């Protein structure tokens, strides 16, 4: 897998089918419906005061939902490029338009936080970058969190470099 910045996009090339599939799962991973821990993390309390929290639920949460949904919609549209990889097991290239980079950062963060909350990863697990191969759905979840973080880091670096 290679990352590079082109004139008007961020390009991820030589994307193998497994990693391409993980990227395809970003929008789905952002869905926190039915996962209480993930919902609590994504829509965290703004204060200890109950009155502020209840007002927040009515006036601010719908705005946040719209914002998060808009980011995942943008990412879903960009990911349609990966459907063009006709041959099975062939590597793909994904181009993220620069104007969509904020939406990608947001959706990747939603996905990372939702997965981490769902599996209740410990600080130790999240910092263990030498973990043994994937042997369970939980291991795959941790791999996703790290891989999405890696993509986020690339986007941030390239945005900083580009000014």
């Amino acid at each position, binding site marked *: 897998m290679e990352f590079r910045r082109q004139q008007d996009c961020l390009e991820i090339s030589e994307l193998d089918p497994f990693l391409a599939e993980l990227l395809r799962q970003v929008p789905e991973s952002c869905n926190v419906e039915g996962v209480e821990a993930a919902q609590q993390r994504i829509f965290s*309390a703004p204060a200890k005061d109950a009155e502020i929290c209840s007002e927040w639920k009515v006036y601010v949460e719908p705005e946040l939902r719209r914002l998060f949904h808009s980011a995942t919609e943008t990412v879903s549209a960009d990911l349609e490029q990966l459907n063009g990889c006709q041959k099975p097991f062939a590597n793909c290239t994904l181009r993220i338009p620069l104007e969509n980079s904020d939406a990608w950062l947001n959706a990747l963060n939603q996905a990372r936080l939702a997965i981490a909350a769902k599996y209740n990863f410990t600080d130790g697990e999240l910092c263990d970058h030498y973990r043994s191969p994937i042997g369970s759905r939980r291991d795959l979840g941790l791999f996703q969190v790290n891989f999405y973080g890696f993509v986020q880091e690339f986007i941030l670096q390239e945005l900083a470099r580009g000014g």
Partner: protein
Amino acid sequence: MQSSIGSSVENPVIEQETSTAEELDVPWQVVVHNDPVNLMSYVTMVFQKVFGLTKEKAEKHMLEVHQLGRSILWCGMRERAELYVQQLHGYLLLATLERTN
């Protein structure tokens, strides 16, 4: 003799006072809490974007969050503090609004 001013303010309606001006002026602070998932570089970028901080200052706050568990990013009127917390939640940071002691 009765003052003419007195007759013009007969039966004034006094609205119930719900909070004093002093209470409304109590400064509020925007606090960001540590989160093991958010990347340090991401948190720094968010602080720069939301509060217009320099990279050095944003990194200082980010490290404070990372090492001490929380950092006060802003202090002032409630309405603006709420707006900052809303923006930070939009970036999925753990942020709260607290009344200063």
